[in-house]
Structure formats: structure tokens, C-alpha cells
């Protein structure tokens, strides 16, 4: 999308909003809030703008409580976001009726962290995998499609025919979940921590499988995880989240090798490395509560570079190098960018300033 379009203009005519060729999913100013009792509000996701291109794997990383899973669920409209929009193939899911959303769901599938609890323990594997077909009135295809998909995810259809989830290990259950998600041939697969519950030796099997399935079914993946090593390996681009906002977005290798946002730098230097000693400084402190996030930049309470400006002004998302975006007043750059890009004039909006959607390169 061309980021010169003012976001308010886009909101006025969502119907005519034509997606650019390669964008399959676009989040605009996505906000998700939950009541926390006593009149308090959990600001889980606070104004996210993100584009997912067709055929790519977009990694979404951050620590627990940063809103990455909530973002994934908001894309699925589970539940509907508090405000903002999710455009899928050019249609704004938030403006559609639930019946219309339901009709789009086959194109948009999700797999979850705990593979065992996400399968119905009382049903047999082929029924679990074939159910989506039955729901969509394609039950007749079950006999043909289900064995195909099971084979694709590395399970023997004959062996699993009479089995139920409890007879399988976590890794195998995750294969079943993936098969169930793929049986309707979705365009986008949202993976919410798909390997976190698995042992290292099994994790590699599932990661390789996801890469294979992506190639075979032409999928677009949104890969949510807290393990940076995993995300680094599978993603084409990575968005780093902190306390409900995206703080950095960029191509995987560049982002990991030369982080621009101080939080990304902290995350990357915290990864225990197979190659040897830790690479950088270790930060202090922990993420503040999303009930009362800090004003201005939400990372400022832990940021070594924070200044007064960070407390008063929400940093806008801006492009600091080709394809690399960050929301930081003091990005770590070889050549400092002082002036924000013209598109980011919305800086004097009060707290939840709307950052312009990151443009394609």
C-alpha cells in the first residue's frame, strides 16, 4: 500500500480499498482491550499496523504479555478487535457480519501451542482432520482428501485410522492439528507458538514440516513465538512487539544482525547462543503491566537510551533504512535519521498516535 494515503481517508472508503498485488493481510490501527475489573482496562494491543505479503512468513516475536497472541487471534476475529481493521484479501473482516466472516474462515486457519488440548480427545484422528470438510458440505471428499493430508504431514493414514489424540505424543498431535488446518487449503495459516510445548528434538521436525507445507500448499504464514532462534530460522520478515505495540519490523537477517530498536537489541543479546558466549549487554527490569502502560514510548522504562522526549511523545513507526521500520526516537543507526518521515506527521495525536502502515519497499 502507498503509505502516503492518510489513514482517515482509508477508513472513509473501506469498500473501495484495493489491496496491492501482494498483500494478503493488512492490519490497520488494530486495538484490542479487555476489561480487567474495577474499571481497569488491559491494553493488550494498542494500534498495530502491519502488512503480510502473500507467500511470506512473517514472524511475530515478543515476551509473554506483549500482545502477540492477541494479535493473532484478532486477525481471526477471535474475538473481534476493539477497534481498527483487519483486511483479508481486500475485505475488512471487522465490518463483515459473523456469517460473512465464517465464510472466509476456510481461507484463514490457525494452529495453537498446546497440540493435545486443541484436539477433541473423544474423536478419532481421521474424523478430527475431516471435520472441516463436513462443516463445509464437502464430506464426500473426506475419504480422498484426509489420507492425502495425513500423508503430507507425515502420518500413516492406516495407522492412525482408529486412534484418538491421547494415543499420540505432542509432536504427532501437532501434526494432526496442522493436517486439520490444511484440509481446507487455506491461504493464511496463523501459528501461535506451534513448537513451544515440544522437545527440541521434535521441534525441528515440526518446523521443517511447516516449511514443507508452506511450499506445497502455497501458504502465507504468520508465525508467533517467543523463541527468537525459531523465529529467525523460519521467517522472511519479523515484527517485534513490546507491550501491545510493534517496535521494529524488518527482514529477518538484517533485524537480528543489526537491531535498530533498543528493545530488539536487548532481545537479541539475551538469546543464549549455541555458538558461544552471550553477545551483548543483559538488560534490567521486566515488562510493565499492560493495565497501565508507560506514557510515550512503552519501552522507555527499561531503555538505556530514553530521554524526556520518550516519556511525552509516542514514537511513530518510520522507515529508517530500506524495508526496515522502527518506532523509536533514538534508533541505533550508523547514520542517524533525525527528522521523521513526512508520513508520520500524526505525531501530535495524543496517546495512541496512529502510526502509518509500513509501506512495501
Amino acid at each position, binding site marked *: 500500500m502507498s503509505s502516503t494515503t492518510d489513514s482517515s481517508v482509508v477508513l472513509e472508503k473501506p469498500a473501495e480499498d484495493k489491496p496491492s498485488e501482494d498483500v494478503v493481510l493488512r492490519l490497520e490501527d488494530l486495538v484490542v482491550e479487555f476489561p480487567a475489573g474495577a474499571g481497569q482496562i488491559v491494553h493488550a494491543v494498542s494500534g498495530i499496523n502491519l502488512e503480510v505479503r502473500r507467500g511470506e512468513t512473517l514472524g511475530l516475536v515478543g515476551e509473554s504479555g506483549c500482545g502477540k497472541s492477541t494479535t493473532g487471534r484478532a486477525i481471526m476475529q477471535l474475538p473481534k478487535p476493539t477497534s481498527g481493521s483487519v483486511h483479508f484479501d481486500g475485505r475488512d473482516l471487522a465490518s463483515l457480519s459473523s456469517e460473512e466472516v465464517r465464510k472466509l474462515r476456510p481461507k484463514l486457519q490457525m494452529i495453537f501451542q498446546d497440540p493435545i488440548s486443541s484436539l477433541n480427545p473423544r474423536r478419532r484422528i481421521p474424523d478430527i482432520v475431516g471435520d472441516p470438510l463436513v462443516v463445509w458440505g464437502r464430506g464426500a471428499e473426506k475419504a480422498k482428501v484426509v489420507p492425502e493430508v495425513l500423508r503430507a504431514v507425515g502420518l500413516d493414514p492406516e495407522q492412525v485410522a482408529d486412534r484418538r489424540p491421547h494415543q499420540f505424543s505432542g509432536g504427532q498431535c501437532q501434526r494432526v492439528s496442522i493436517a486439520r488446518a490444511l484440509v481446507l487449503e487455506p491461504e493464511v495459516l496463523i501459528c501461535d507458538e506451534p513448537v513451544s510445548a515440544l522437545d*527440541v528434538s521434535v521441534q525441528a*521436525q515440526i*518446523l521443517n514440516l511447516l516449511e514443507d507445507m508452506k511450499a506445497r500448499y502455497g501458504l502465507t504464514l504468520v508465525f508467533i513465538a517467543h523463541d527468537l532462534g525459531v523465529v529467525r530460522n*523460519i521467517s522472511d520478515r519479523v515484527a517485534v512487539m513490546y507491550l501491545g505495540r510493534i517496535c521494529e519490523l524488518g527482514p529477518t537477517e538484517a533485524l537480528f544482525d543489526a537491531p535498530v530498536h533498543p528493545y530488539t537489541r536487548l532481545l537479541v543479546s*539475551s538469546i543464549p547462543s549455541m555458538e558461544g558466549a552471550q553477545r551483548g549487554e543483559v538488560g534490567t527490569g521486566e515488562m510493565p503491566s499492560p493495565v497501565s502502560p508507560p506514557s510515550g514510548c512503552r519501552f522507555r522504562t527499561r531503555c538505556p537510551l530514553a530521554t524526556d522526549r520518550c516519556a511525552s511523545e509516542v514514537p511513530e513507526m518510520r522507515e529508517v533504512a530500506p524495508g526496515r521500520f522502527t518506532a523509536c526516537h533514538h534508533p541505533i543507526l550508523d547514520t542517524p535519521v533525525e527528522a521523521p518521515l513526512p508520513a508520520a506527521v500524526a505525531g501530535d495525536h495524543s496517546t495512541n498516535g496512529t502510526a502509518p502502515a509500513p509501506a512495501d519497499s
Partner: protein
Amino acid sequence: MRPTTPQAEKAPTTAAPGRHARREGFEDGALLTVEDVHVRFHTRNGVVHAVEGVSLELSEGEVLAVVGESGSGKTVFTRRVMGLIAGSRDTEVSGTVTFDGITLSELDAKGLSKVWGKEIALVLQDPMTSLNPVKRIGAQITETLILHQKLSKQDANARAIELLRSVGLSEPERRVRQYPHELSGGMRQRVTIAIALSCSPRLLLADEPTTALDVTVQAQILDLLGDLQSRLGMAMLLVTHDLRVVRSRSDRIAVMYAGRIVETAPTKDLFDSPRMPYTEALMNAVPPITGPNHVRLAVIPGRPPDLLAPPKGCRFSPRCPYAQDRCLTEEPPLRDAADLPDGSAVEHSYRCWYPVGTPENAEARRVNVERGETAAGTPVTGEMVPA
């Protein structure tokens, strides 16, 4: 197990006199010696062989990492060392655990309570459940101090504040009056570490101390543990599933698989030249954090064995890319790597008939690649065998 430094609820009032003479008269011997420890659980479905003949030694001030996947027996082993698992109607234990001349495995609860917290402390994985939710932080720390160090309540309180400060907790004066639910996970783990260290133990057992924490907090806690360990000169048994975590934080590593130690070596040596195919496979299965993305990960086929019926022969043989007929019938003993042609003189032992890096291993791989499967019938693919 509730308290982090387990103590008998009703401790004997005749507890050991004063501080033990640390570092004095200490000879360069083993602080902890574990010999041929077995733990078997009799369950309705059969006997679970959780720990099978584990032996190891830990010197004063040394950090030994025990690495294994879930079900490898590492936690049961740690608990047996601590004395938290004892023989009973459905639990069969054997072997000896000796700590500084005391045979822990023969002590009863009363005897153990003199050692727990004072000489040996334990930090567990989940700081949410290892603290008492209805007691203030301060009271949970002073409990140990009053019991073992005979401090007055006031002194103990002052010491508790000091301890909280030493583990990097902000506003320690306020924290002692707070309850666990008022603290975050990382802060709670700092509290459990403070409790563990309150009596300057000589041995700290840390069972997955950072697994429940976020990556930035994990780094903080590991650094804290390493820092305190070297400052206090205590020995540490660091149990984890993550090889990456221990790479720069341990002197030696013992890799556990299906209840057995399958390889043990100084950390650098283990990473430089793993001998056991399982260790090699574990290392290759971890996604790298440098180099290009979309790297095909080396996989370990199958899954860890069922300890109700562990495989015959080498327990890794059904998943091993090099497995030959011998591996299926004969379990390899722990062998010394110094006997290998390119082995160094360091203490490095492994359980394998076809150790990685030897001509025998290369030959086994060639044979398996040629016939397309291992002797155990596992298909050999390019993904499985490192080039």
C-alpha cells in the same frame, strides 16, 4: 514440593552448631558423589525406569549441567540427590549419594532437614508454585535463617533485606512485606534464589530455573546465578533441557537420555567434539541464530522412548542415524574418549559403539545411507544425517 529450600516443617531444635567451616581444610575432592543411582516407579501400567545407574561427581565450586529432554529422568535424578524421593511401597531406589562425607541416601527426614537449606539448596522451575502464597516474602526468607543460623527475628529480617538486594530486587524493604502474587515471575524467581542462598549453601541444585521465564529475564537470572555461584564459591548442579543455556555457564555437562547419562565431558569439549550421536543430534536440532534463515534443521526422528519399556540395547538406537545390529542388542557402557585416536586427555565419556568422529562412525553412516535405513529400520534421510 512447596518450599524452595525444603526444610522439615518441624525442625529439630538441636540443629547443627554455627556455620560450617567452608573452604577451610577443603581438599580438592568431590563435594557430591553419586554412585549407581536407580529410581524405579511401580505404576499400574508397569515399572517406570526413570533413572538407571547414574554416577557422577561434583567438586567444590564446580558447575555441572545436566541436560536432557522431558522424560530423560533429569528431574527425578535431582530430587533423588536432594533426598526428596525416597524408597516406598511403589518407589524403588538404590545407589548412594554422598555429600561431603555424609551419605545422604541413608538419612531420614530429620537428618536431611539439617542439610537442606543449610548445605544444599534447591531452586525449582516454577516460581509461581514454589513460594507459599499466603506468607509474606520476608517471612519465607527469615524462616530458613532463624532455623539454621539461629538469628533473632530482627537480625533475620535485616539479613533478608540484604539478600533481596544481593539478588537484584529493587526496593527490598518494601518487598519483604509483599506477598508472592504481587511480584512478577522474574522477581519471584529472584526471591526463591535469595531463599536458596540465605544460608550460603555449598551446593545449589537448580532444576530448570529459567524455563518459565521470558528470554530477557532468563538472561538476567542466569547471570545472577553465575555471579553468585562464583562469588560464594558454591557448587551448582544446573538442570536444563536447553543446551544453549549452559554453553557459557557450566564447567561440565552430563547429557541424559531415557534415564541414563549418555555422555559427559567438560563443556568446551562436549561442544567441540560430541561423541554420542544423541548429543550431536540435539546440537543440530537447535535453530541457529546466526547465518541465513530458512535453514533446513537436522531432525531426530521419532520421540524419546517410553520408560515403561525402554528399547533393548542402546536406548537411542531406534532414533539414531548410525544404528547397526550391535546397537539393538548390546547396550554400550560408558567409555572413555581418551582411548579414541583423536581423543584428548580430558575426562570425556560416552555411551556408543560407533562414536561420532571415528572411522567406525563414518562406516556405519555409509552402510545406513546405502541401504536407506538403519539397523532399527528407521529410514535414513539427508535431514537426519549431518554431512
